[in-house]
């Protein structure tokens, strides 16, 4: 998602007077988002905290997060893209017909009021969740929302931020970006990085049966992926590193138990706004960390003859 207009959660805390959550349910999925970063905190330019801020929730159903919102807008399922494009058109002053927006579940008045609130904000932020980025339209929805945030800067200061899920997914994007130039789905089989979502993304690779071995760490695809993808993981030699014996471990050839990240393994993780934070583990694990195990596998492979002819740029990203 290159080129997004964004900021840190610290800026949201100190400046944001309009907070929009789109397709996310922070009350249940990011429970401290409201209290630690967005709504209730007093900030430098929002000294009265919640009183100085307006929150709008956009979703397809009324989740517990609606209770925290000043305004809840219920969009018909799979109509987020239409709502976003209509908002962009209104903001550009184009004429919209009431009939054409009816299919979105919102009226033209609601959309005009929404657009007006967005323009009038002093510092607005659009947080978007998987209800937007994982439903019909997918990354096109995210792109429309990011474009909306960028275009609103013609009127006021506006930013957008994805509500990233659990663990260190954000760190994964960041690390892959600075080591390979791409955020995910990077194919290194030619000795240099190639990026093509849909071709080199895991589910597509597994469904086509392209991979003939897999190393899974920090995830349990055996519990989350489509069944045909799981079937392929069971067919090929799969290796799992995890603090527990997971669903994937049960279908794998090799499982290695590792220390739990942040609980007994130290290191760095990225917050959803791409701020790196150090971990302070409270326990000592009897198991090695993922970092140690991956490094040892690397060293074991490095002892074998190289698969590329010598001198063909083999170790650009070498970590050791």
């Amino acid at each position, binding site marked *: 998602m290159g080129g997004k207009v964004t900021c840190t959660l610290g800026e949201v805390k100190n400046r944001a007077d309009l907070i929009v959550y789109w397709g996310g349910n922070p009350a249940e999925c*990011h*429970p401290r988002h409201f209290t630690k*970063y967005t709504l209730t905190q007093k900030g430098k330019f929002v000294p009265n905290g919640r009183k100085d801020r307006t929150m709008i929730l956009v979703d397809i159903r009324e989740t517990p997060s609606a209770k925290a919102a000043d305004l809840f807008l219920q969009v018909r399922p799979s109509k987020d893209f239409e709502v976003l494009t209509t908002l962009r058109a209104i903001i550009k002053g184009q004429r919209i017909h009431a009939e054409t927006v009816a299919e979105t579940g919102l009226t033209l008045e609601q959309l005009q009021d929404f657009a007006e609130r967005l323009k009038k904000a002093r510092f607005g932020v659009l947080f978007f969740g998987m209800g937007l980025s994982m439903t019909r339209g997918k990354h096109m929805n995210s792109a429309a929302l990011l474009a909306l945030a960028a275009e609103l800067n013609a009127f006021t200061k506006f930013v957008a931020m994805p509500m990233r*899920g*659990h*663990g*260190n997914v*954000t*760190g*994964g994007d*960041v*690390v892959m970006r600075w080591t390979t130039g791409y955020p*995910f*789905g990077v*194919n*290194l*089989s030619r000795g240099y990085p190639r990026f093509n979502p849909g071709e080199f*993304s*895991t589910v597509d690779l597994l469904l086509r049966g392209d991979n*003939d*071995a*897999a*190393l899974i*760490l*920090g*995830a349990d695809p055996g519990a989350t992926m489509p069944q045909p993808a799981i079937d392929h993981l069971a067919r*090929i030699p799969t290796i799992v590193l995890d603090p527990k014996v997971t669903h994937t471990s*049960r279908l794998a*050839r*090799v*499982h290695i*138990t590792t220390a*739990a*990240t*942040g*609980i*007994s393994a130290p*290191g760095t993780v990225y*917050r959803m706004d791409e701020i790196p*934070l*150090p*971990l302070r583990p*409270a*326990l000592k*694990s*009897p*198991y*090695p*960390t*993922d*970092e140690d195990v*991956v490094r*040892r*596998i690397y060293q*074991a*492979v490095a002892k*074998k003859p190289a698969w590329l002819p010598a001198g063909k740029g083999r170790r650009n*990203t070498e*970590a*050791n």
Partner: protein
Amino acid sequence: MELTITKNATCTFCGCVCDDIELHADGERIVETKRACILGEAWFKNHTAERLYPDALIDGKPATLDDAIEAAADYLYNAHLPLVYGLSNVTCEAQREAVALAELIGGVIDSHTSL
């Protein structure tokens, strides 16, 4: 047993990554998680320092760490297009090692982001 107190511990359960948690631990498990939300508390209490699982499993049977590392290296080395996938619940340091390994074995590296 004396409780050890870890101040400003970091919770990695959700993208908020709250770094103001106070953990009280008795050496084997975390017994108190000040300031964590219910999800964070469950996450911290769900993992202990006990030895609940074998060091490693090969074909479902307990194995030593050294043997499992050799087996993993063999499988990955012999594959034409190995996949390195996941990277959610691991540190950036581990992710960095994983990218290096993916390059060495000529594989694809991917995370939850692609789902």
